[in-house]
């Protein structure tokens, strides 16, 4: 069996699809990707899903599988990184310097700050960490509208429901309704990392060469085009 099955966080879809096209044009066996929430994918792998490779949107779920002993540990790599940005509806966008003590509360006025749900959605967790570091969390906590995922937070800003939002730069780039008004310095939050690993249950002979393909410079343009940073 040489078909490679990848379980990947949904936000990777665009870039990964492009990479896979390139893989296919090299005459390699086809790759099937199941895009879903990292949590769902991790649990499915735990339940015996026929996957060869897992790409998570955060380290936690990769760690979860690692603890269950389901990973080929030596294959585990941090594949991609991302940046957190502050966005506003395009019409009202004025650049903001993100630094300790900047008056986010005033900017929000009575409005909401849209972001991923701060306890469960990775982007939310990073945003919360950053705001805590900026000592803004206690001020804005009650203004936070925690969305189910980054895309939903983006939509809230893009639709003008919320005056500001915190999302990945990968998402912000694609939505014409929003503008990036500031980028969070990387030291404000734990590194945003998309780890990749081969699974112990993997049976596809091409899996490890596919993993190497993703790590190769050939695929870097696809990820960079979507706004990811290459980590390896």
């Amino acid at each position, binding site marked *: 069996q040489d078909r490679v099955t990848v379980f990947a966080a949904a936000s990777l879809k665009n870039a990964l699809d492009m990479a896979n096209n390139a893989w296919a044009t090299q005459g390699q066996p086809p790759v099937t990707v199941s895009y879903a*929430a990292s*949590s769902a994918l*991790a649990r499915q792998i735990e339940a015996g899903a026929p996957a060869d490779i897992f790409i998570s949107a955060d380290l*936690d*779920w990769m*760690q*979860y599988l690692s603890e269950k002993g389901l990973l080929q540990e030596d294959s585990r790599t941090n594949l991609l990184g991302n940046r957190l940005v502050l966005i506003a509806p395009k019409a009202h966008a004025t650049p903001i310097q993100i630094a300790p003590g900047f008056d986010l509360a005033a900017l929000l006025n009575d409005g*909401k700050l*849209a972001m991923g*749900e701060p*306890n*469960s*959605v990775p982007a939310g967790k990073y945003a919360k960490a950053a705001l805590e570091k900026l000592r803004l969390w206690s001020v804005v906590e009650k203004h*936070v*509208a*925690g*969305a*189910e995922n980054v895309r*939903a937070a983006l*939509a*809230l800003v893009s*639709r*003008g*429901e919320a005056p500001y939002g915190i999302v990945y730069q990968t998402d912000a780039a694609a939505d014409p309704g929003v503008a990036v008004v500031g980028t969070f310095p990387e030291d404000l939050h734990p590194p945003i990392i998309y780890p990749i690993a081969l699974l112990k249950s993997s049976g596809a002979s091409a899996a490890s060469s596919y993993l190497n393909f993703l790590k190769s410079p050939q695929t870097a343009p696809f990820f960079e085009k979507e706004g990811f940073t290459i980590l390896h």
Partner: protein
Amino acid sequence: MEWLHLSEDEWAAVRLSLWVSTIATLVALPFGVFVAYLLARGRFWGKSVLNGLVHLPLILPPVVTGYLLLIAFGRRGVFGAYLESLFGIVFSFRWTGAALACGVMGFPLMVRSIRLSLEAVDGKLEEAAATLGANRAWVFLTVTLPLSLPGIIAGMVLAFAKAMGEFGATITFVSNIPGETQTLSAAIYTLTQVPGGDAGATRLTLVAIVISFSALMASELMAHWAGRRQHHDPVR
């Protein structure tokens, strides 16, 4: 029972879910009856379009429904802006929005049940009522509606249960703000998204089950009390 101890936010979610589900069900009811009546009895152009629209929230992934609600009823939405300026009704990031989302998601279920019962009402009884002087509205109120009670109750039960379980459309439309829009379902979902959240999720799930079972039992009693058994005394 230490294990079943709920945090303040969780209690808020329970209260909110109950409140939102109840309001969604009650507010949807008159619309549900009206639309069911149109579909059961009306003959008008665009009836199948209406029928399709009603089913839409069932057909679409809840996230899409939530997104559509955002476009329509958000602060800048077509209807949202109107409703705010005319009646001061605001949905975005309010429990009202959660109720709207739940109501919309449960609407097709409610309409189908009521429609089914309306269609089963014996037209002969409506004729009899008309000969006794009841106009169309009165016939509906005194004969059709009471005889459709089983369907109305069933529709309310389904809508309520759906409202308890709904989170996809809700979280997309009004986000997940504890105490304001975080329903029990959304809280459970959130817990499933973090490694190790299982115990919490299980606990809240049990709470949801207990609440819903109680509502279910109450509805069965109600249906029984409405006592539409027209059957002869059962022998076999």
